[in-house]
């Protein structure tokens, strides 16, 4: 059988190298598009031959890598990772199309980094070995750092370094947790093995509750900072806002932290020394993020920062859904990740277009863009509606599932989070009102609407938002299977 997982990781990396070697923008973007299209085709092939009713790992690949330390080259996908791979594979070619006509310095590096990023992120999703997982996890840092640092806004230096240090420290703490788990398992079984499944199955056998808590918290910290969630979110607005549009979209597609929570944190949670406290932490931080993120978004003058903070708010749903601990709430959280990836891509692309054509993204300086940029206005409105949770769009399904099913286990936090929904609606509508409608601000001058490629790429994503909003089952089925597996793992772990 085709080693399709290795291929979807290696092909972007390989094309990344090609892209670096090209000289001209025209060559670089063609190479990038080819690489991502091949990846997309492979992913679609994988998606259609994926058995969404099976909880087992599919397309598994296993090869010995460093036997003396029990490290294997172990890949596989299941319902938890498949939708996220799909998301990446779909959006990134569109992103490349979106930037098709952009003129910027060193385009070969630009496209090379995008491809490297895609390879690394997919690598995280398909890794079933902690070592490999961590390698890809760290690898995602580098393209993003350069994205912000080279093509970012005026504060790029500060933002990139802040991002780098925050997330790197978090990863190192996570690494400590992985070490702890690895050696505890080694001691217990006498066999070195870095496999994620193996280590998690050994987790409950660790004698001391405090040790389990320490390992758990170290891992949790790593994921929460990367997610990010209040109070570890402060790198995000800077990095998102300073990044170029493509960089912001890449940040949005970086769903590895949420994935880590589903894959690692949730199954381990019941086996910690104090599971209740852990649930509280997760739920509380989630709902606080929803509300606090919304408040912060409300107070922003800069459109891009506002979108960034709304992202913090959205990520709160992931944590809250995870804290719900039932299969459907977890599925909701997963769907929120998927939906957020689509919606926010459009949002950042729109902001990018606005900034490029008007030269500003301060909300107060804009107004009445709908009259001059009708195509943009339509697509952007759809995204805003989806983001605030209008029924019929993906955002609604995700938030609805999280609220409804989390209520069973963490009612207090759900009620707290509900306040956030009101504010979310408020700032979305306000921002839309101020930018799109009303009187056209003459100071801006003449602006151009979306180009054809931009329209195409944004419209495809918008249509996907609509499609999955009306018919979520193509991805939701997988997610529910995956969530059921997580829940059954949790049941097996319970001490």
């Amino acid at each position: 059988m085709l080693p399709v997982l290795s291929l979807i990781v290696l092909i972007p990396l390989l094309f990344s190298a090609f892209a670096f070697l090209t000289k001209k923008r025209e060559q670089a973007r063609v190479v990038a598009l080819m690489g991502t299209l091949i990846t997309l085709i492979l992913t679609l092939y994988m998606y259609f031959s994926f058995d969404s009713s099976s909880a087992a790992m599919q397309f598994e690949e296993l090869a010995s890598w460093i036997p003396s330390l029990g490290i294997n080259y172990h890949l596989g996908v299941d319902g938890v990772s498949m939708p996220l791979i799909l998301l990446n594979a779909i959006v990134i070619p569109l992103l490349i199309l979106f930037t098709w006509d952009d003129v910027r310095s060193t385009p070969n590096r630009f496209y090379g980094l995008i491809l490297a990023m895609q390879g690394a992120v997919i690598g995280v999703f398909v890794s079933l070995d902690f070592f490999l997982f961590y390698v890809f996890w760290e690898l995602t840092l580098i393209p993003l750092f350069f994205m912000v640092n080279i093509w970012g806004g005026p504060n790029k230096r500060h933002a990139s370094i802040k991002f780098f240090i925050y997330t790197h420290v978090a990863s190192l703490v996570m690494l400590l947790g992985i070490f702890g788990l690895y050696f505890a398992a080694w001691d217990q079984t006498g066999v070195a093995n870095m496999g994620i499944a193996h280590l998690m199955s050994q987790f409950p056998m660790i004698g001391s509750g405090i040790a389990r808590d320490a390992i758990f918290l170290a891992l949790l910290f790593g994921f929460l900072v990367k997610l990010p969630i209040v109070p570890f979110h402060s790198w995000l607005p800077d990095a998102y806002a300073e990044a170029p549009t493509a960089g912001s979209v890449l940040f949005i597609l970086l769903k590895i932290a949420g994935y880590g929570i589903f894959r690692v944190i949730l199954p381990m949670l019941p086996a910690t020394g104090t599971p209740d406290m852990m649930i509280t932490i997760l739920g509380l931080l989630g709902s606080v993020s929803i509300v606090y993120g919304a408040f912060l978004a409300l107070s922003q003058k800069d459109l891009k920062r506002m979108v960034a903070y709304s992202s913090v708010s959205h990520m709160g749903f992931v944590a809250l859904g995870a804290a719900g601990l039932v299969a459907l709430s977890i599925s909701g959280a997963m769907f929120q990740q998927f939906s957020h990836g689509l919606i926010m891509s459009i949002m950042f692309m729109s902001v990018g277009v606005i900034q490029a054509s008007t030269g500003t993204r301060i909300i107060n300086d804009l107004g009445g863009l709908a009259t001059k940029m009708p195509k943009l206005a339509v697509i952007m409105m759809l995204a805003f509606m989806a983001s605030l949770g209008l029924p019929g769009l993906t955002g609604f399904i995700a938030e609805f599932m999280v609220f409804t099913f989390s209520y069973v286990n963490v009612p207090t936090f759900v009620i707290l989070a509900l306040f956030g929904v009101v504010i979310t609606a408020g700032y979305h509508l306000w921002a839309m009102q101020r930018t799109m409608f009303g009187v056209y601000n003459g100071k801006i001058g003449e602006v151009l609407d979306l180009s054809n490629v931009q329209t195409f790429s944004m419209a495809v994503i918008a249509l996907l938002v609509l499609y999955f909003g009306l018919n979520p089952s193509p991805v939701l089925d997988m997610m529910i299977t995956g969530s059921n597996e997580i829940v059954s793992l949790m049941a097996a772990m319970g001490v």
Partner: protein
Amino acid sequence: MVDLMLLAPEIIVALTGLIVLTIGIFMGSSSKNVLGYIATAGCLAALAMVIGNFNASALMFSDTLSVDPLSQFFKLVFLVVALIVSIASIKYTEDNTDTEIFYALVLFATFGMMFVASANDLMVLFVAFELASIATYALAGFEKKNPRSVEASMKYLLMGALSAALLLMGISFVYGATGTTSIPGIAQNMDVLASNAIGLLAIVLLIAGFGFKIALVPFHMWAPDTYQGSPSVVSALLAAGSKKMAFVAAFKVFIVALLAIQADWRMAFAILAVITMTYGNLVALSQRSVKRMLAYSSIAQAGYISMAFVVLTPMALTGGILYTLSHGFMKAGAFIATAVVVYMVIKEKRDTEIPDHLDNFKGLGKKMPITALCLTVFVLALAGIPPTAGYMSKFILFSSTIQSGMVWLAIIAILNSALSLYYYARLVRYMYAMPHEGEKVSEPVPYVAALLISLVGVMAIGLWPEPFVEIAMQAASVLVGGI
């Protein structure tokens, strides 16, 4: 009769040195470039001999030399570094009248290092140690007309001489107490030393002596000056080769010979390791000279490697030993990349007050793409970003620390790694995010070849570490025989 085949690498290196010297003095200065190729060929041949006899094990010359996996591993390290340096120096010594001296010294220094690796007797160890040191003193001052180079050399020499004196004093006490200079012999007679204040005195002196060469804080003060002032290719040899020689010597002396009094030196190494890595990283933050920054980073890395002495488990030693190999590739590569920049600065006739100033790295990504890319990989590897050699080594070393329960040490080390990222990232930012001045510069082939070899090494250890971990484990098993 001894099997001279096992000594073939050393003999080849020494003979190549003599041949280079002889050919060089009877040759016009125009055709001296060929010497670099001869030296490179010698290193390659020796490397082939080492790899061919990798699993050999023997005692030679009245048990004063021991060929075992440990010595073979470190010979590999030294020869690889010598190879990289030789190749890079083909360009560096171009049009130089003293080419033969340069290559002969590099080869003799390597020869000394290789003998340290296989020494089984303190006498051989000390003599070889000094042979390598003396050759590197001269190399550091190779640019006789450059006041910085000479100053670097002098500081290095004075500190090196002091370290030799301390070392000899320490060895004399060990010898006095145990009545032998043979390393296994000392290990057998250690009970004498354990019950004696002389043991403590010897340990203090030996730690100080090796500490100078390893550049452990507070014995590090020569290192930044020397690495900065020396020609870059020599800095590569010093950081990647000479420092590793001190490590292998210290491994032999402390872990094999003085194991019985480990209680006395483990704590000392723990404190020194923590101070060293923290100090190195903190001071590196504020450096504007890249070579100086690399020097401080080198100090910090020495702190990491020293953790192997503290943890003292087979896995920690494997990690430490693997780290020496990785660091050899990373640091040699990084210094050679600075050599390319210095070459560029001289070529463009810029102000050469501090040719390796950070400002000269601006926009390097466009001016010299290969160098910039390689340097990026090297510094990211030094920071421990996967999938590079630096990550792999840190992974094993730090994880072994946690395994043995010294979580505090691991946390300090990991925080240090995170801190170090700041200044490495800054260098990368300068290269890629800053506008460049002047035209694109074509990179000299020898430099590029050396950089690519280092790059391949760094990536090979990072991507397929199994064979390297395997040989490092074998090397460590030689040391931990007594544990």
